[in-house]
């Protein structure tokens, strides 16, 4: 066959191929999106907050205090997928590796892995604000916010000891969660403090969950299990659990603060209102809130304070019905 003719046979084949390509392009690009554009670049320093506390209300208050004058920095809160120290460690190592922030506010879920996190952050030039009980054990952070949760538990225990001096008191303990370091330490401090008093006994321990809704339900169960006269006071590890206990007591016809002492190691606005209204015996709060304290430290670092020079202590104070004033430790 003529070579030229052979070539011409390719023309219909090519035309068919082109038609097929056109058809494919019509149906093969279904749903394709246009070019996406990113939002305007934010030049403020990025601050990642890492807290694995299940108590959303506490975290909400903390973040609100931290962000209410946020213009100077951008706060990025990593809501935990799992409320565990191992999740926190993995999340932080990935944040650090990506260089996703310039500052890191860290309330560690556990001591384990903390040194590695601090070292990795240091290598990336990320300045860490560490909220901890023992700053000395973890050098390498840019700022330390020291909190002694055991002391908070002990402080509220002292209020209970005074309130029930010479009387028998069976205490229902409402802890926040087994996973909450803060709650565990507050409970530990409380128990240590009342250990020497024979008139004070623990009647029940339950997990309130750190939210109003769950605490109401759990305290309701406690009242049903122990009976209305089966306990004399409630100790809650957080303000949210305390408020839940207060509502459950009211529902059961028990007057909180009068017929049943109500104590908590964490305070908040409604808790203090309840103390003033005589429906809550006492609570512990910080002289300056944790959010405001952390904000002060962060601003100092952003303002140029050298790493390691910024330190603050969260001073727990008692808010009681007797005094309606604060007593420092």
């Amino acid at each position, binding site marked *: 066959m003529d070579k*030229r*003719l052979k070539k*011409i046979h390719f*023309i*219909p084949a090519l*035309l*068919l191929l082109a*038609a097929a390509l*056109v*058809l494919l*392009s*019509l*149906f093969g*690009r*279904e*749903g*394709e*999106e*246009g*070019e*996406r*554009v*990113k*939002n305007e670049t934010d030049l403020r320093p990025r601050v990642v907050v890492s807290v694995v506390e299940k108590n959303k*209300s506490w975290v*909400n*208050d903390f*973040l*609100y*205090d931290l*962000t*209410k004058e946020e213009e100077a920095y951008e706060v990025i*809160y990593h809501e935990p997928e799992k409320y565990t120290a191992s999740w926190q460690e993995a999340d932080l190592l990935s944040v650090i590796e990506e260089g996703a922030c310039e500052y890191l506010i860290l309330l560690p879920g556990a001591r384990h892995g903390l040194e590695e996190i601090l070292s990795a952050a240091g290598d990336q030039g990320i300045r860490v604000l560490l909220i901890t009980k023992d700053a000395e054990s973890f050098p390498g952070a840019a700022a330390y916010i020291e909190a002694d949760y055991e002391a908070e538990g002990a402080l509220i225990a002292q209020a209970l000891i005074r309130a029930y001096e010479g009387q028998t008191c069976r205490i229902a303990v409402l802890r926040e969660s087994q996973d909450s370091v803060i709650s565990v330490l507050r409970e530990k401090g409380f128990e240590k403090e009342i250990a020497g008093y024979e008139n004070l006994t623990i009647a029940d321990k339950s997990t309130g969950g750190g939210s*109003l*809704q769950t605490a109401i339900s759990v305290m309701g169960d406690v009242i049903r299990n122990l009976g209305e006269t089966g306990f004399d006071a409630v100790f809650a590890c957080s*303000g*949210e659990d305390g*408020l839940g206990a*207060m*509502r459950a007591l*009211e529902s059961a016809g028990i007057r909180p603060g009068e017929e049943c002492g109500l104590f908590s190691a964490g305070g*908040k*606005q*409604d808790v203090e*209102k*309840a103390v*003033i*209204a*005589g*429906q809550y015996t006492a609570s512990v709060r910080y002289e300056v809130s944790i959010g405001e304290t952390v904000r002060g430290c962060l601003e100092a670092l952003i303002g140029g304070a050298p790493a390691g020079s910024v330190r603050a202590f969260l001073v727990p104070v008692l808010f009681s019905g007797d005094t309606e004033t604060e007593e420092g430790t």
Partner: protein
Amino acid sequence: MIRKLKTYLTGSVRRKLLAQIILVSVLPLIMIGIVYTVGSSIFVISGIQNNLRTEEGLVFAEMEERFGKAERLCRSLEENADVQDYLRRNFETKSERYSLELKAGGDLFSRVRDDEWIEGVYILGENGLMLQSGDKNFLTEDYQDFSWYRKTMASRGPCWYTAHKGSYIAGSVTEQVLTLCYPFRDAKSRKNIGVILADIDLAKFVSVLEGINFSEEGYYLLNSDNTIFYRTGSTAFLADYEQKIVKLLREHSAQIQNNKRSIVSIEEGNLMILVQKSSVTDWSILSHFFVLSNRYTVG
């Protein structure tokens, strides 16, 4: 090139025959391809358009129901005899007021605990009473100088506020909050004696809407000026599309404004938008349909 090809093909009978064969075999294929493509596109596009209308109707109905529910909740609080009594009281001491706030807060909590998308309900009385359904911290003890408070006190009906960060009243870091401010009228004196405020968590509000949404790109929510204040789906957005949508909205604002409760279709070039205006909030929901010469997307 074409001339050379023409000369070559007409050079001999064999070549002429070859040219005829090509014509006879390829042309019908091309014609069928074109007819099929155009027909299918029209069929697919019209199908998508109908689906989109149906879906938008469903999303809209759900959204209307929720806006209506928030207003009904406020109205029921306004009509509640106990709450009327609370807001008429004068408090001698803070202790007395706080005691009532805690008690009534518990009742309020029970009313909204099942509606997760309602982040909080607050009642602020001219007598200083401050009730809330949750346990958040109030930002201040005095809200009377805030513009939303003054506006609501001066109004006879509900005022809706589009997405803003955090609550007007309580410490909250929720990224996108819709707020309903509802004047609380004294049933006896017929005067406004307080404000009921409902905060709606927009992410939770639209998450249920997205459950009946077949498109990943989702919907736009527009305020009464037809300005986009929320887009579902990704935070990034299709900038080119959006500029065209904004332009169309501006041009057809009167048409949208006058058509409440029915879907308005607007077409320009390859872009079609469907807009439906809420009779409760005066906001709109918008979905769009974009057809390029050789592709389509639905959003």
